[in-house]
């Protein structure tokens, strides 16, 4: 019963993976003849300014987004978990961005950044808002951070919320009697107890942010210039239209190794932290 599944999975997943790795050692441009060129592609990828720039952008983006998303979603989750009115409605509203298609959300915010924010900036005399930030090479990445966070916060909030609901309320009463203030309660009780949920969220948001693609297509197309080209965008853009098939395969192989190492590293460090607490 599992044999057809294995054959299909091998054909459409493992085989392309092997091909990708294989072609990264050749000079194939997607059609015609090719020959082995050893690790020349890899040497060139490491020295390629476009790709280095893409790594710079992707890491800056992924780290900032992961931090922003986790801080804000933890705060929202704590607020939603405390005794407030309209809890369930608010929860439904805060989760809502998660079910929308990333591309279309990107297009909508494109308009907000291009037209609404500049009007607001003019009206309030804030010069930094008065032009389209997506058109500014040094600010465009922040626009993408905002939109990516807008959707990821929805997801991470729900995960933190379900973590908070696993905590027994008696512990809070006990710490209250012992005279702990709110900050102490958070640092010494809440945060350690939701450590596994923190791990899930950190790993998933980092992995998701490193793979950023849809937002780039919708909002900047990698621009202005090449300011917001992410690694996945470079692989897609130059791999398909630039005739750099083998070269971008080498780039993808390196990217694969980077993503796996980061995920494993995060899991190891965060899992160790869970034990220590």
């Amino acid at each position: 019963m599992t044999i057809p599944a294995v054959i299909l999975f091998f054909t459409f997943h493992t085989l392309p993976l092997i091909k990708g790795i294989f072609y990264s050692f050749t000079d194939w441009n997607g059609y015609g003849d090719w020959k082995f060129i050893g690790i020349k592609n890899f040497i060139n990828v490491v020295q390629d300014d476009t790709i280095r720039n893409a790594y710079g952008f992707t890491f800056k983006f992924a780290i900032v987004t992961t931090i922003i998303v986790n801080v804000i979603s933890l705060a929202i989750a704590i607020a939603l978990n405390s005794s407030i009115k309209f809890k369930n409605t608010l929860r439904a509203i805060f989760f809502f961005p998660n079910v929308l298609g990333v591309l279309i959300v990107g297009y909508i915010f494109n308009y907000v950044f291009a037209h609404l924010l500049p009007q607001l900036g003019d009206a309030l005399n804030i010069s930094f808002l008065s032009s389209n930030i997506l058109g500014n090479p040094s600010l465009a990445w922040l626009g993408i951070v905002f939109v990516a966070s807008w959707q990821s916060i929805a997801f991470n909030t729900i995960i933190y919320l379900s973590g908070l609901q696993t905590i027994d309320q008696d512990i809070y009463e006990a710490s209250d009697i012992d005279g702990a203030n709110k900050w102490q309660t958070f640092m010494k009780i809440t945060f350690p107890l939701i450590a596994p949920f923190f791990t899930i969220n950190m790993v998933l948001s980092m992995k998701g942010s490193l793979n950023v693609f849809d937002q780039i297509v919708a909002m900047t197309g990698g621009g202005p210039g090449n300011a917001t080209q992410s690694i996945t965008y470079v692989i897609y853009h130059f791999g398909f239209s630039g005739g750099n098939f083998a070269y971008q395969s080498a780039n993808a192989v390196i990217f694969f190794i980077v993503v796996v190492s980061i995920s494993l590293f995060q899991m190891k460090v965060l899992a160790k932290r869970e034990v220590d607490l």
Partner: protein
Amino acid sequence: MKKKKINNLLTVIMITLAGIFILFPLYILVSTALKSPEDMMKSTLALPTIFRFDNFTEAIKLTNFFGAFTNSAVITCVSVVFIIISNSMVAYAIARNQSIKYFNLLYYYFLSAMFVPFQIIMLPLVKQVSSLQLDNVPGIIILYIIYGLPINTFLYVGYLKSLPKSLEEAATIDGATIWQVFFRIIFPLLKPINATVGILAFLGCWNDFMLPLVILSKPEQATLSLVQYIFQGQFSTNYNLSFASYLLALLPIIIVYVFAQRFIISGVTNGAIKQ
């Protein structure tokens, strides 16, 4: 019971936040989609003076909305149904035979594939798929079903391990075949995890942009997301038209969400926590 006191200040803060950051962009979406270009000139924020439903009829005609909607619906529904049936079968075979080396290896084979980013297989995959003439709707459905295996095997195997084997053993003694055991006994017991897998697959397939972008070569097979990308150039600066089109594309999922939000939230949460 002083803890039970409703925190009014926090309630107000949360409602304000939700209003500004989540409901306001939605208001922009809906109001822009309903305005005429003249209304837009007066104010980008105000409510439309007249509801201009022509935006929608134009958007439907231009983007072939019903065609794209049908494509999205067919791809999503067929994929979800087959993902649930086929992936649970594979997981069942693995979960009940993990003492056999082959099945155990298989489990880790699928699991390790979760770490492979799509970009690394993307370029060779596209070549391969088009040479097999699967660069179409049936092809993309096959891919979704196959790519569901890693995560779903993991979710199903985890759940199956928690089910007692005694029921199956009793059925086998009574002479039930393995298929009867699976469909009559196991599959109904999988209901909660089927819901989780189904919801995740539904959201994933419906909102996916990358796979349709690289796999679907003919414009008439485009999904709702892909259509927005294809027609970006033709919308140009007619924001009322483009927003009407975005709203139409988002409407199905918004409607589903309004009616099934509890169900969707718990499905997504379950899926993430079991990882």
